[in-house]
């Protein structure tokens, strides 16, 4: 793994306004992300862990710059420096149109494979859509690439004309991954990609994500609350609490010797699939 920095987040702050009263005036704000900084290297997986409400999802959304579209008058400051072939650019101030060329390089996989795929579109349309937006490919070229992508994520290319409801949860998540990979991204932000799946299916999807990472040299930001899954897939881990990164470092170091009290609490609370551990904890 080279240590080339692909993404450099500097002092990111996100504040959501709170509106109240009869006239819905701004009565306060929630500081969801309180000035965090981290870097993502090429080819690595950075795990972002924390409990609900810690701001981990907001960080992911800030990076791909969709917060302004999602939330009225959200205040964002800091820098999200993204390395492209032609130099380093700060993504945060970009408008939607300005952002478009970079969106192909940073893609997202969502938690809920049921609501993140349009039920009225076929797999062909779903996976082909980013190609239609971001590339000049002809219809036939797109169809070829969609088939190729489906096979890459372990689905059959014969399924291109099916609709999402014809697939199981794990298969849908593979479709979501194929869509994210369509434009050859450098960075994939995966927000709880396996937490809605059954245990026996989680492992399949994690393995597919690791295989694809190796094959295409992808960098992942893997956002999750499941500490065992995060440990398995991540090279480095950032532990978040109340909008701050309280600890960041190599995965093994954080799991073996957590420094921050919050990381220690979080790790101690994680259940182990080992009955012997219970006795250690309670005795």
């Amino acid at each position, binding site marked *: 793994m080279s240590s080339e920095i692909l993404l450099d987040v500097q002092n990111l702050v996100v504040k959501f306004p709170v509106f109240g009263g009869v006239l819905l005036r701004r009565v306060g704000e929630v500081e969801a992300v309180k000035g965090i900084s981290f870097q993502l290297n090429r080819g690595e997986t950075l795990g972002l862990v924390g*409990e609900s409400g810690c701001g981990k999802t907001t960080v992911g959304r800030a990076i791909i710059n969709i917060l302004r579209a999602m939330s009225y008058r959200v205040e964002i400051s800091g820098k999200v420096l993204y390395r492209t072939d032609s130099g380093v650019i700060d993504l945060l101030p970009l408008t939607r149109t300005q952002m478009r060329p970079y969106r192909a390089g940073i893609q997202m996989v969502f938690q809920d494979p049921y609501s993140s795929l349009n039920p009225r579109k076929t797999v062909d349309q779903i996976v082909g859509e980013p190609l239609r937006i971001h590339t000049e490919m002809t219809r036939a070229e797109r169809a070829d690439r969609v088939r190729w992508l489906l096979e890459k994520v372990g689905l059959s290319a014969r399924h291109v004309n099916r609709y999402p409801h014809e697939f199981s949860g794990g298969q849908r998540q593979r479709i979501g991954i194929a869509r994210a990979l369509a434009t050859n991204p450098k960075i994939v932000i995966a927000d709880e990609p396996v937490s809605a799946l*059954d245990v026996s*299916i989680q492992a399949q999807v994690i393995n597919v994500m690791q295989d694809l990472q190796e094959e295409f040299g992808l960098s992942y930001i893997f956002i999750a*609350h499941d500490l065992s899954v995060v440990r398995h897939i991540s090279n480095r881990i950032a532990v978040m609490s109340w909008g701050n990164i309280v600890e960041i470092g190599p995965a093994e170091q954080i799991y073996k010797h957590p420094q921050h009290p919050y990381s220690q609490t979080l*790790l101690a*609370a994680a*259940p*182990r699939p080992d*009955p012997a551990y219970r006795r250690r904890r309670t005795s």
Partner: protein
Amino acid sequence: MNELLAIRGLRTYFHTESGVAKAVDGVDLDIAQGEVLGLVGESGSGKSVTALSILRLIPDPPGRIVAGDILFKGRDLLKLSWDDIREIRGNAISMVFQEPMTSLNPVFTIGMQVMEVIQAHEKVSRREAHRRAVDILTEVGIPDPEQRMKQYPHHFSGGQRQRVMIAIALVLNPSLLIADEPTTALDVTIQAQILDLMLEMKARRAGASILLITHNLAVVAETCDRVAVMYGGKIQEVAPIDTLFKTPFHPYTHGLLGSIPSVEGPKARRLTVIPGSVPDIHQLPVGCKFVTRCPYAFEPCPDNEPPLIEESPGHWVRCHLYPHGGKAAI
């Protein structure tokens, strides 16, 4: 063993437009007095339907318990009148559900909801019911319970709501608590607190048993005395907790244990995978339910359902690899 609950040949079917879904198809399960039994399975395995069948909470139509006995302290719950089963619910057997957000009524105060259970089952004064509600809320660790009784569910966090649910479930000191994914919707630190609370509450009630339903084997490892693994509407393996994690017999249990990454110990580069996906409940295989995904499947598996046999003392498995006292083949 001193049986509190004995389920025999339970079959609960759902009649839907796409055919008959055999959600629970011949389940035998015992819960001993004072034990914590884990019922583990993936979505669609029939674990929740088993739990709902015990309290006769299956919506009919489309669901119906078509066969079986559920003996609770010697009485068959499936033969009780509606009034008799109501007397048991919340009193002798109570239940905690997954969603602490939806299982409390948003328009009543917490106090009213705790007191309702007491007054529904016992002839006590309002004052007495109030006193007992305060006591149980104190016991489950709700600070300032007198004040909090006057508040509504939305004033409580997810973890606190689950504490309230446990208070409601345990206020009448039931012999059996059925907890259906009680911590799935909660954060890890809160999950640990709620599991500890359940075990503490049980320890203070001599002889009380818990049936813990979950998809999470790590949660089972931390809390249960024995485990039953369900798949395709059937119990596939039952064993004491240490035995199941040390020497699992069923290929499905093997697969499940292999597919969980660990938070400590050496890190596997790749996770072991159970291929395929959970079969459609309308079209379960005729023979072994796991045959479509089993790496060890051989000729008897597709057509003959293996029986659940006691392969070693207390360790039951439903698999052709273990023909009546044969040697472990895995």
